């Protein structure tokens, strides 16, 4: 049984501008001792899904949470607030992006560490202090006995993040969620922290969920990767498959648009045109379609769901799922062309993308009047209940999901 199983999680927020579908049907699993990477940009929902696992979304008054989260056999969404509290900082811990603002500025770090222990264990302050010193030593803070009495602002950024890690691991959690833990740090410090996280993971056998936008970080630290876009996981596979044989146009876009130290210097960056979509007015059909170079008519009417990418012939039961309506063969041909260095325009000339053939397993909701055939063999069933139109947004400009510039 997996340590953490998230199934069709939906987290929507009621706001004055409408319902923000921050997480819109996300499923993933984390096994004991394993590392899962969740990759996405701002607005992808990557943080919200983890905050919901921690039960922290309950504190925002306007959240609607559906789906299921099962941790170590316990149903977290049905758990009481008190049950969730006993899990937080104990069995599941989380570290965040900015270590300076994440520590209380008025209390010594020793006190903050002791507090983390005494919330869950019945020990004396002296015992808690000993454990705190031990943890500080474990994360590589020199002279821990002395630095117990320091305040957060007396540490450097890297040291503070180490303190956060110590605080998170102090009760030996089974799962550690790290939300962009190194984004605010310098490159050499980032290397230190990633090294530390990996080392501790092996020593303490903690499962990790690493949330980041940095594909380099997940390449180093994780086993499996889920790529998120507009509140959904659009591709889910083990690390090797994601980098060697990605199957979703968004993943391709990410891989081709980032400058890398290991690719030829002159190679052009191919940006993904347009902007991440509004989570209130999501594009119809496939959420990525306004920015996808390989879009077809049918993709504007069919909402894709995660389906196995056919060619999982690499043995070992490795999972590779992708939420894309393009036929598997077409996808593989497109990637084969892209990885030789061609840009999407060239690829479209060389690879035939069929008009109406689609990957049938990836078909989710079909938004069309009943009876219409939106693609080969896909007929809309009963009319889909349309949601009431959300209140008019002040100006469609910021939410405009269309490309805002010719390809540059």
């Amino acid at each position, binding site marked *: 049984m997996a340590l953490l199983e998230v199934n069709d999680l939906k987290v929507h927020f009621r706001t004055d501008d409408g319902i923000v579908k921050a997480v819109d049907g996300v499923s993933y699993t984390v096994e004991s001792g394993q590392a899962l990477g969740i990759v996405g940009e701002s607005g992808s929902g990557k943080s919200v899904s983890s905050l919901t696992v921690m039960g922290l979304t309950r504190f925002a008054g306007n959240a609607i949470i559906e789906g299921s989260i099962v941790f170590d056999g316990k149903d977290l969404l049905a758990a009481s607030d008190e049950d969730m509290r006993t899990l937080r900082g104990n069995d599941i811990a989380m570290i965040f992006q900015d270590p300076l603002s994440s520590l209380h500025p*008025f209390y010594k770090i020793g006190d903050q560490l002791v507090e983390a222990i005494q919330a869950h264990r019945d020990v004396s302050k002296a015992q808690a202090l000993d454990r705190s010193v031990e943890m500080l030593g474990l994360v590589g803070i020199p002279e821990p006995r002395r630095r117990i009495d320091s305040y957060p602002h007396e540490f450097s950024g890297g040291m503070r993040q180490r303190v956060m890690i110590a605080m998170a691991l102090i009760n030996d959690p089974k799962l550690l969620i790290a939300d962009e833990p190194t984004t605010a740090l310098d490159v050499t410090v980032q290397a230190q922290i990633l090294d530390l996280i990996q080392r501790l993971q092996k020593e303490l056998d903690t499962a990790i969920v690493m949330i980041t936008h940095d594909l380099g970080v997940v390449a180093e630290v994780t086993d499996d990767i889920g790529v998120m876009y507009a509140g959904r996981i659009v591709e889910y596979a083990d690390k090797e498959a994601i980098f060697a044989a990605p199957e979703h146009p968004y993943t391709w876009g990410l891989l081709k648009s980032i400058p890398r130290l290991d690719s030829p210097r002159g190679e052009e960056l191919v940006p993904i045109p347009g902007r991440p979509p509004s989570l209130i007015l999501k594009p119809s059909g496939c959420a990525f379609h306004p920015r996808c170079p390989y879009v077809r008519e049918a993709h504007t009417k069919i909402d894709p769901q995660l389906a196995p990418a056919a060619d999982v012939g690499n043995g070992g039961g490795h999972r590779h799922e992708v939420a894309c309506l393009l036929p598997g063969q077409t996808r593989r041909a497109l990637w084969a062309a892209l990885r030789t260095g061609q840009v999407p325009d060239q690829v479209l000339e060389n690879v035939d993308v069929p008009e109406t053939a689609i990957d049938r397993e990836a078909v989710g909701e079909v938004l069309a009047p009943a009876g219409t055939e939106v693609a080969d063999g896909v007929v809309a069933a009963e009319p889909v209940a349309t949601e009431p139109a959300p209140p008019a947004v002040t100006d469609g400009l910021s939410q405009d999901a269309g490309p805002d510039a010719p390809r540059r």
Partner: protein
Amino acid sequence: MIPFIIRRLLWMVVLLLVISFLTYIIFYTLPAADPAALRAGRQPSPELLASIRQTLGLDDPWYIQYFKYLKRLVLHFDFGYSYQNNISVKQQIFDRLPVSATLAFGAAVVWLLIGIPVGIISAIRRGTWMDRVAMGGALVAISAPVYWLGLVSLYLFSKDLGKFPIFEGQGAYPSTGSIFTNPQEVIPALIMPWFVLAASFAAVYARFLRGNLLEVMSEDYIRTARSKGLRERRVVFKHGVRSAITPIVTILGLDLGILLTQAILTETVFNIPGIGRLAFDAIQKSDLPTVQGTVLVGAFAIIFLNLLVDIVYAFLDPRVRY
């Protein structure tokens, strides 16, 4: 910290000098009653006036008068004598100081005891009826002029005149003793004045704390505290309120410093013999030494309390370093 304190104390001296100088100039240049005439009584003869002028040194040029005044003040701690009744200014002020202090600090206790819980509850229960009632009440309390509030409370609750006679009314403050020596008379006399004076401050502090706490509760370290699995009460108080309340210390110092000599309206309505009344009367009667005395004492209180709260703030917030 020590160089900081020394620097502030030196500044205090400079400020007090400047204030005393400005007060002098104002009195000297603004048309006001002739103190000699006030002192002399009805229909004084010119000779009487002249002799009074000479006694008071009013014929000297202003800078000589000022210099003499400073000399007396610094060397002998002598504030001079009231033009009105020839009583030592120092004595008058220091007689009334316990009264004003009791009024100010007592009101502070009341407004903190009311304002802080109200602010916290409003923030935690933001948007609920409790929050709306509290903030609505705060609006009323801030808008109501203190003398109006004082008169209304006398009308309603004063023992001799009120509709629901519960509390002591006007003139109940005993002529002898302070809160320490004569509490059985002082305290009942001050109950209504304390609450009336505290009303608008409690409202301001409640609103301020509410705003601060709401902001603090959205900070990252609150999210960390919750993710450590701390009980929500601990998160709100030990992490939230602890941060939100430090700016209150700063404004508390300022408010107390001002109130010490400026509670004129309350003192008038309830007939309390405090420094505020003294100052007001002195201004009306152009009694320069008394005015000067109260201004200096008031200024000293404000500056000193400000310094005190700045020091306290450094202990509350370890990031602050002087």
